[in-house]
């Protein structure tokens, strides 16, 4: 995903024009279009599109009357396929029973992420709807126009008299046809220069509250298949042995006993560990126990999280290595401030912990081409990585974009980890021998790519009137982008994903400084649902709440008084407060907290209610969430993503933490790394603020505000802010 980021400024098309391309396929009508890029980009685009694969289109209508939509965006549960299908169907007026969505790949000109400048295909940053908004509506509209033109010619009637509804093209004379009947003729029609899109007041699909996902049924009866479910002739299963510490390497290994086990096919060294290949998963697991490995730990990370956090806390009190924002004069403002609040926040490493552990399957074919099945969230990168490991060129790599049992960022990994394992194992097995690499939960939890641990040293000052005059936040932690192919994104020592959410603070604070010290720790890290905002929102929003208390101001009014230039922030805050009954008294033992955060151009405010219980603990009872994500495409999915984001974020701040001792990860499974369970899930109400702005994303922005909102409710109850996460482990001794 960061390939985009790195090219964000240089490759953004300076002008974009909609060119419809249509053609006859063996199947019927295929509609695509190309972005016309600025002249300087053409060379690059040409190189990128030299890919041999069947997906050169957005919408295909088959003679069998199927509507096949080729999605540029990856589906990991967040509903991107449904959203994209909604955009197409709005303009195409098809019948949802006709719809299939499959993952397109291998043509950056066609599938490049528009929201990031179009230079590569990838899914992330909650950009799927903003990237697809024009592209897929125009594709649907173009397909519809061609079907109408074909019908007009066939029936010899004016195109303007033709009606299209629910997958049927008809004329008042009584003539009618299914899309499939017209597909071949439509493909031969002259392509219109441009196709007008429906005006907002004619929308029937976009914004419909009653429209349901087309893909739910298969997820209720076991029919939906994921990478783990792949079946094909001759498929073997491999399980992995990874280094016990990050940076350790294989010195030698003895697979004699494992290979002697009935059903073990081979034991293979890959660039990332040892693959034990068996006829089924259980056999491979038994074989794995028999492999003896000697590790070379010379380059291994030997620190534990206790040492790492101690180093971070120390570094946080020093000057920052780089300055991300510096408004006014913070030292002078602090010197004259009436009241100062300061302290350190500590954020642990977090695991994505999707329930489908990482996996991928690969086959080197007899002709040397390679098939790779998996959660291809970054297809351009994975195609290139598979080609490199497989000893061929990217155009010889066929990707099969599988549905995935969660990602939360983990399937968008710059080193293509499990893809490399699968392709190198397949290569070792030889041509025509497919293999699926399946990680166990332990592989997944100990395999790295965590949300980095961070320390924030914060300081804020109030003047005599209770106004915030200065805020200083020094963030210490690893860079997600550092050392990756996207390291070029780091400008002047600032990885923007480390400081986002702090540098773009919406509150009117005249003296504001954000510093960053990027650390060198050999623990692999990655973006984790809402990335920088997972920690910056917590630090900033709990600090603002503490300042409100110190100024003796209401937390909602206090925030609103500093949001004069940010009406969208203010609007979601007002809606959440109003719907939650912020001004109404609560029963004894019940407390409220509020938090507000914009991430990835979506604005979310949460008001939570908690109840303290006798065991010195608490329960989150209710969350009222207000969201402004621009034009609401699928309102019920926006609600679903806010609900899910709240549950995901709540589990993290309450009780998720990955720790290491002597370089070894302590947690292995869900017994010690503990996502939220149902009994901890609050009631959630989501209110969508009406908007006619272009759509932004909802996959991630539901996560950041829940943590600080809960912490602020706890502060309301106990008078103390919990600055070290996770909360439950660190709240002992807190009493109301």
């Amino acid at each position, binding site marked *: 995903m960061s390939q985009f980021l790195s090219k964000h400024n240089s490759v953004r098309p300076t002008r974009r024009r909609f060119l419809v391309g249509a053609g006859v396929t063996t199947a019927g009508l295929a509609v695509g279009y190309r972005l016309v890029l600025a002249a300087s980009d053409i060379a690059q685009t040409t190189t990128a599109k030299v890919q041999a694969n069947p997906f050169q289109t957005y919408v295909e209508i088959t003679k069998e009357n199927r509507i096949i939509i080729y999605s540029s965006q990856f589906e990991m549960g967040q509903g991107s396929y449904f959203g994209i299908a909604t955009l197409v169907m709005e303009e195409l007026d098809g019948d949802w029973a006709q719809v299939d969505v499959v993952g397109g790949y291998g043509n950056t000109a066609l599938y490049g992420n528009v929201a990031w400048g179009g230079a590569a295909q990838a899914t992330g940053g909650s950009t799927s709807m903003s990237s697809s908004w024009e592209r897929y509506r125009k594709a649907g509209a173009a397909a519809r126009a061609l079907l109408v033109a074909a019908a007009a010619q066939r029936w010899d009637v004016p195109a303007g008299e033709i009606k299209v509804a629910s997958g049927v093209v008809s004329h008042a004379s009584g003539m009618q046809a299914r899309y499939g009947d017209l597909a071949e003729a439509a493909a031969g029609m002259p392509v219109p220069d441009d196709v007008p899109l429906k005006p907002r007041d004619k929308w029937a699909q976009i914004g419909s509250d009653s429209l349901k996902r087309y893909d*739910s049924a298969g997820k209720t009866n076991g029919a939906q298949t994921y990478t783990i479910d792949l079946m094909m002739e001759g498929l073997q299963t491999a399980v992995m042995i990874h280094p016990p510490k990050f940076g350790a390497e294989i010195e030698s290994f003895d697979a004699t006993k494992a290979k002697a086990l009935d059903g073990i096919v081979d034991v293979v060294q890959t660039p990332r560990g040892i693959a034990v290949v068996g006829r089924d998963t259980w056999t491979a697991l038994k074989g794995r126990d028999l492999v003896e490995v000697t590790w070379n730990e010379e380059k291994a990370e030997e620190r534990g999280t206790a040492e790492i956090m101690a180093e971070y806390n120390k570094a946080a009190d020093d000057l920052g290595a780089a300055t991300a924002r510096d408004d006014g004069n913070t030292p002078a403002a602090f010197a004259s401030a009436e009241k100062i609040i300061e302290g350190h926040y500590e954020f642990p490493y977090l695991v994505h912990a999707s329930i489908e552990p990482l996996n991928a399957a690969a086959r080197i074919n007899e002709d040397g081409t390679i098939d790779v099945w998996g959660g291809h969230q970054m297809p351009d990168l994975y195609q290139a990585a598979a080609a490199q490991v497989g000893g061929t060129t990217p155009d010889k790599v066929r990707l099969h974009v599988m549905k995935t049992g*969660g990602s939360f960022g983990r399937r968008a990994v710059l080193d293509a980890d499990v893809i490399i394992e699968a392709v190198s194992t397949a290569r070792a097995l030889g041509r025509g021998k497919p293999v699926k690499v399946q990680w166990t939960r332990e592989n997944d939890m100990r395999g790295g790519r965590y949300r980095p641990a961070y320390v924030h040293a914060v300081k804020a000052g109030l003047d005599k009137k209770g106004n915030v005059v200065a805020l200083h936040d020094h963030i210490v932690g690893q860079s997600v982008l550092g050392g990756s192919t996207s390291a070029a994104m780091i400008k002047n020592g600032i990885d923007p994903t480390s400081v986002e959410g702090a540098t773009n603070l919406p509150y009117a604070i005249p003296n504001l400084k954000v510093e960053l010290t990027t650390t060198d720790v050999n623990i692999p890290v990655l973006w984790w649902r809402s990335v920088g905002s997972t920690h910056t929102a917590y630090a900033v929003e709990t600090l603002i709440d503490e300042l409100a208390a110190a100024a003796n101001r209401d937390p909602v009014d206090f925030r609103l008084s500093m949001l004069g230039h940010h009406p969208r922030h203010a609007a979601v805050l007002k809606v959440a407060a109003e719907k939650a009954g912020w001004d109404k008294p609560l029963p004894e033992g019940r407390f409220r907290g509020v938090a507000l955060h914009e991430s990835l151009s979506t604005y979310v405010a949460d008001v939570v209610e908690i109840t303290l219980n006798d065991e010195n603990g608490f329960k989150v009872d209710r969350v009222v969430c207000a969201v402004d994500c621009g034009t609401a495409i699928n309102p019920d999915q926006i609600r679903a993503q806010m609900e899910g984001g709240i549950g995901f974020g709540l589990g993290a701040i309450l009780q998720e933490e990955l720790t290491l001792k002597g370089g070894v990860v302590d947690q292995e499974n869900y017994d010690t790394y503990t996502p939220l369970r*149902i009994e901890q899930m609050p009631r959630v109400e989501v209110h969508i603020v009406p908007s006619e702005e272009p759509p932004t994303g909802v996959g991630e922005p539901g996560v950041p505000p829940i943590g600080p909102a809960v912490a602020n409710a706890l502060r309301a109850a106990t008078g103390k802010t919990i600055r070290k996460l996770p909360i439950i482990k660190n709240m002992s001794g807190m009493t109301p």
Partner: protein
Amino acid sequence: MVAFTLNGEARTLDVDPEMPLLWAVRDVIGLTGTKFGCGLAQCGACTVHVNGMPTRSCQTAVGDIEGASITTIEGVSGKIGETVQAVWAEFDVPQCGYCQSGQIMSAVALLTETPKPTDDDIDSAMSGNLCRCATYHRIRAAIHETANRLET
């Protein structure tokens, strides 16, 4: 050789008796609706019914199911099961969907035992089923709705 009933059909399996039922059902028999998530009975993605009881198939050895009646997600039938599935889709409960086979097996068992569950009943019966997408809010609503429909 182990003989048992799977989704109403008599079956035999000639595998390592220590093989977890999960891998036998998925890799040997080829029914992949039952999912692997942890291998430690911590996540519930592998939940099946053994003689009607919701059971983690990752911790159930094939050697221990002689004579048992096993139901997987593919074998869900009857008024309760079908209503659960229909409401699940209608409420758009699933996001990624990966854990939902297990959720549904646990929900069907709950509603069979307790036709009108309270929130506490639901929390206690469903606590063993993790959903990383955190669809819990809708799971609760869907179970209540199913109970209401089955009542009438």
